[in-house]
């Protein structure tokens, strides 16, 4: 994990130093490095929505806004806006592949440990309990919905939705309290 964090950090530094003067070599370097380290991270560049956005940013926006002071095949465009668009596109590509490289190589367990390091000290306890309770919570939600369906005449009234939430949360809290009641007795005795 540390290796990928360091690698992503290097990519972020590359992204922050990118400009119109160095983008033509920084971008290929970043892409080749990511290809060598974790090529799955590059799949983000194949998303058509992202490519369309970059296309509009680099080729559409300079024609549309700013002082049009240059010509490309007879089409007037703003040199200043074009320079800004190229810088933004380069920066976004490098940052996104850096994030993807990091998040693609971190497990949920490592993420969970990360929370403990962030001084969310009770997180590990709460998370362990929630993972254990999850099947029961699903069961209570299903049972409550069935009871609600039997008792309710119209599901579409806001009041009905509110009533369902009251039933569900009260049952969940009742379950949570009954779940810890043996500890209650223990502490009372001591």
């Amino acid at each position, binding site marked *: 994990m540390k290796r990928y964090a360091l690698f992503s950090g290097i990519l972020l530094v590359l992204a922050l130093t990118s400009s119109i003067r160095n983008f033509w070599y920084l971008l290929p370097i970043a892409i080749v490095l990511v290809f060598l380290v974790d090529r799955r991270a590059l799949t983000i560049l194949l998303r058509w929505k992202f490519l369309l956005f970059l296309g509009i940013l680099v080729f559409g926006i300079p024609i*549309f*806004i700013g002082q049009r002071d240059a010509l490309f095949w007879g089409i007037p465009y703003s040199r200043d806006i074009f320079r800004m668009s190229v810088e933004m596109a380069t920066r976004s590509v490098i940052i996104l592949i850096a994030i993807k490289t990091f998040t693609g190589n971190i497990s949920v367990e490592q993420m*969970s440990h990360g929370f403990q390091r962030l001084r969310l000290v009770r997180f590990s306890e709460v998370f362990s*309990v929630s993972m254990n*309770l999850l099947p029961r*919570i699903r069961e209570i939600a299903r049972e409550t919905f069935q009871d609600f369906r039997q008792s309710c005449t119209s599901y579409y009234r806001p009041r009905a939705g509110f009533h369902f939430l009251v039933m569900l949360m*009260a049952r969940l809290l009742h379950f*949570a309290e*009954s779940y810890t009641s043996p*500890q209650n007795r223990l502490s009372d005795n001591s």
Partner: protein
Amino acid sequence: MKSSEPQEDLVASLTGGQHGYARDTVVMAVFGALWGLMEVTVGVTLKGLRIPMGGAMLTSLSAVIFLTGRYFVPRRGSILIMGAVAAVLKIFSIGTVIAGPFLAILIEALLGEALVLLFGIHRLSYMLTGSLLLLYTIVHPFISQGIVFGTNIYRIYLETFTRIAEILHLNTEHLLIIVAIYAGIHALMGALAGWVAFSLSRSVENELHRLHHTEGAHS
């Protein structure tokens, strides 16, 4: 509702048998799990249906859950822990860590926690928290785009809006009115979520008393 012994042992071992602490741990676990389940089920449905303002609706529902949870666990940091549980459950469901939804849940939790700490626990505070949280959802894309694309993106947006306004013969005031209406709808949705969360907490409290009485009468 019966609880199984191994699970009770787990809570006892994790919490050292302190009742208040154990109770709060389980309530946070339950509300965190509920928030996570809602994000997985409702979140995926809203995204799939491409409903307008789906993100705002999801944030409203999240606010209802964590504000109700906070009412029953009046401890500092409880919303943050519920949010962390929900975020990890969400990425568990996806199978891999995707930064977007993960960070969105954590930021919601962080903001919710800060606002409740600031305003306290009462109806008005819940409505304010909901409103500010929903208003933040408008600003959030601009902040994240500022990080990814750099601050020049704001100049691009500003100049694009000005150009569109020119083409449509609108002036800046018209654009501001549109933005204000959009923000107003979000603020109202948030206030409603806060109102519902507080009313829900009160009603759940009454329902819980009723359940205890019923249980007492049966035993």
